[in-house]
């Protein structure tokens, strides 16, 4: 471990944890803290919260690239200083929010933000920004570049971000390996490997804790072996399900491949408890190519799903709820995607996904 300890250090660390938040709050927020009564969405990208006191707070929400720069953040601060008494916040989906009690500030603020290239929207029944991950920019195990996929996708969904024409909120996510740091979503774009890892036996024994890599495999496909006199590992390729978990433990088990690392599309993830219980997402497309710089195949698949949902969803139905009503059969028909044998669950609780009923759709 390279612990930096320069002798000339003068500051003594304060293990302070999160930065405190009170000084970050706008005075009107402090006055109405815990006493908001309701909200409205007067126009796309704008929330109006009304307090029990009668106070009003306007929020203007805008999209960001998430991979920001100090220049960009300073620009946002300029807006907040100009219109919001120096207060702003970010959402869990990388949108920025400007909070002001002054209704008159809303329109000029929107104009300025749009002029700077930050689209205003992302509130209410729209497609909000994509929760995503590091990709080739920073991670040590990615098969793709999440930010690039997201930029390409949001270019096509720009209007869906700025308008509220969906049956309910649509959350997207994108992840650069099957670990899926982007989390589940109404529609998720996640890397799916399709070949077992290739083992670099020369490096393996030097850089890996063998038992850890063995333990990491969910299907016990990894076994110790000896190659050229060195302790190494081997993969039972018949068992291996190409999850890439071993690669996270051992960089000598190379799972990434320029051609064989593909994309899968997942739908119906829902974390809120509104109406139906939260639900995990289901795979609906796979074997899509990893095609930089614009990944058109991914964008196309996501577009088909959104088009069908937009046309067929009833008010308040999230993507998964819509599918539950119309049925998976029609989902595949209406999106033009194809259900195939690999989409039949084969993992631990597979049985619980079998159609254990005579309910049938034609």
């Amino acid at each position, binding site marked *: 471990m390279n612990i*930096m300890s320069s002798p000339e250090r003068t500051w003594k660390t304060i293990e302070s944890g999160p930065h405190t938040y009170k000084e970050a709050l706008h005075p009107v927020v402090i006055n109405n803290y815990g006493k908001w009564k309701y909200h409205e969405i007067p126009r796309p990208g704008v929330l109006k919260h009304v307090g029990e006191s009668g106070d009003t707070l306007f929020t203007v929400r805008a999209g960001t690239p998430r991979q920001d720069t100090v220049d960009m953040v300073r620009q946002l601060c300029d807006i907040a200083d100009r219109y919001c008494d120096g207060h702003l916040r970010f959402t*869990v989906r990388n949108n920025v929010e400007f909070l002001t009690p002054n209704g008159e500030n809303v329109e000029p603020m929107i104009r300025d933000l749009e002029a700077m290239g930050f689209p205003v929207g992302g509130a209410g029944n729209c497609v909000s920004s994509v929760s995503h991950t590091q990709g080739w920019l920073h991670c040590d195990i990615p098969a793709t570049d999440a930010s690039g996929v997201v930029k390409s996708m949001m270019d096509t969904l720009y209007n869906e971000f700025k308008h509220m024409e969906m049956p309910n909120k649509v959350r997207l996510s994108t992840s650069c390996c099957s670990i899926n740091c982007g989390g589940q979503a109404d529609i998720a774009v996640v890397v799916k490997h399709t070949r077992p890892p290739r083992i670099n036996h020369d490096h393996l024994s030097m850089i890996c804790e063998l038992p850890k890599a063995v333990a990491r495999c969910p299907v016990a496909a990894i076994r110790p072996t000896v190659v050229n006199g060195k302790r190494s590992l081997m993969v039972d390729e018949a068992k291996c399900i190409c999850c890439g978990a071993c690669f996270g433990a051992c960089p000598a088990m190379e799972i990434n491949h320029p051609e064989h690392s593909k994309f899968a599309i997942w739908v119906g993830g829902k974390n809120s408890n509104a109406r139906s219980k939260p639900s995990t997402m289901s795979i609906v497309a796979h074997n899509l190519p990893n095609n930089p710089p614009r990944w058109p195949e991914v964008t196309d698949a996501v577009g088909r799903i959104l088009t069908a949902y937009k046309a067929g969803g009833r008010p308040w139905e999230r993507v998964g709820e819509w599918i539950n009503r119309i049925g998976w059969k029609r989902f595949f028909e209406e999106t033009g995607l194809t259900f195939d044998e690999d989409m039949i669950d084969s993992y631990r609780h597979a049985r619980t996904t079998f159609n254990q009923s005579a309910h049938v759709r034609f």
Partner: protein
Amino acid sequence: MEENKGASACGSHGCSHSNGGCGEKFLNPTPMLDELEKGPWPSFVSGFKTLAERTKKPMLRGVMDQLEYSYNTKMGYWKGGLVTVDGYGAGVITRYSMIKDKIPEAAEFHTMRIQPPPGLHYNTAMLRELCDIWEEYGSGMLTLHGQTGDIMLQGIDEANVQECFDKLNEKGWDLGGAGAGMRTAVSCAGPARCEQACYDNLELHLHALRHFVGQLHRPEWNYKIKFKFSGCPNDCTNAIMRSDLAVIGTWKDAIQVDEVAVKEWIEEKGVDALVNQVINLCPTRAISLEDGGMKIDTRDCVRCMHCLNAMPKALSPGKERGISLLMGGKNTLKVGVNMGSLIIPFMKMETEEDREKFMELVEEIIDWWDDNGLDHERIGETIERVGLRQFLDGVGLDVDINQVSRPRDNPYFKAKY
């Protein structure tokens, strides 16, 4: 960044090689990445390029070159390592280039994870300070925010890490989590900006993460553990799926009904909308139509939030508020995605004592996990493997029917009698 911006102007934010006008370029050509300057959505590539051209930091040129290279070869080239600050065991995600022979300028490109204020509320002074320090010691690239909630300051050399940290720490910033310990947390806007908030999640977040600050900086458990704090069951932080300890606001008594506002709503939207969009969507049929109005049977309500979402002006959470604790949320590895499950149906969360009591409980829970878990096993996996009942026994928690969606459907148990 409107459609035409990247293609024509050399704005401070949308500058691009292909259009000249900037004179000599600091950056090498990145034709693949440049494709990502097209289109209306804000372009991270444009942002990076602007920053690089302004600051002329070689690391930025290097990282752009490496990214361009990845776009061509469709492979990544970072490998991990270990860098940290004095006394800490985590918080810096270390990256060394595997192709530094080809592209030496980004040989190191570490990320410092920084814990944001709960609720991601900022004032501009805080953010400007952060930017200034980061521009001084690091690349000037950052992510707002990482999925676990951190401010990710991306791109720094090992040599600068300690000093950068000291400067940040002086301003009230601290490193976030990494490795097998407590992780950074996320809170929704909470009572600061939301009428649905059922407890002060910002305060609990601050309290909890300070409480576990040692284990966050010096990871020593089986694996990571994450808190997320959502003010209500809408769960705007995705706590149920993305955190081992999902603290979700709820209430015990009846939904508060503003009868006048209900009437107004119905007058405005009609009875059809009331039936189709509210009554029929209640998961437990707790609402019935009565004389053209609505009646909620509190006993049947499961606090799903739907009717409150649909009629925010008319309906509000009850007055007896607190939290539910759900445990075990996590993503894919090994067991497939696991949603957190309800462990504590209700706990008051109003006073400092309430928060302390909660901390004690969480300590107990983590102790149990520390004793019973395997290496690289999240607490939800441990509970599944060892058994929910055994977990409850182990921690001394009450059995509650709310913890399960149904009693078992098999006779495969040996009772103690």
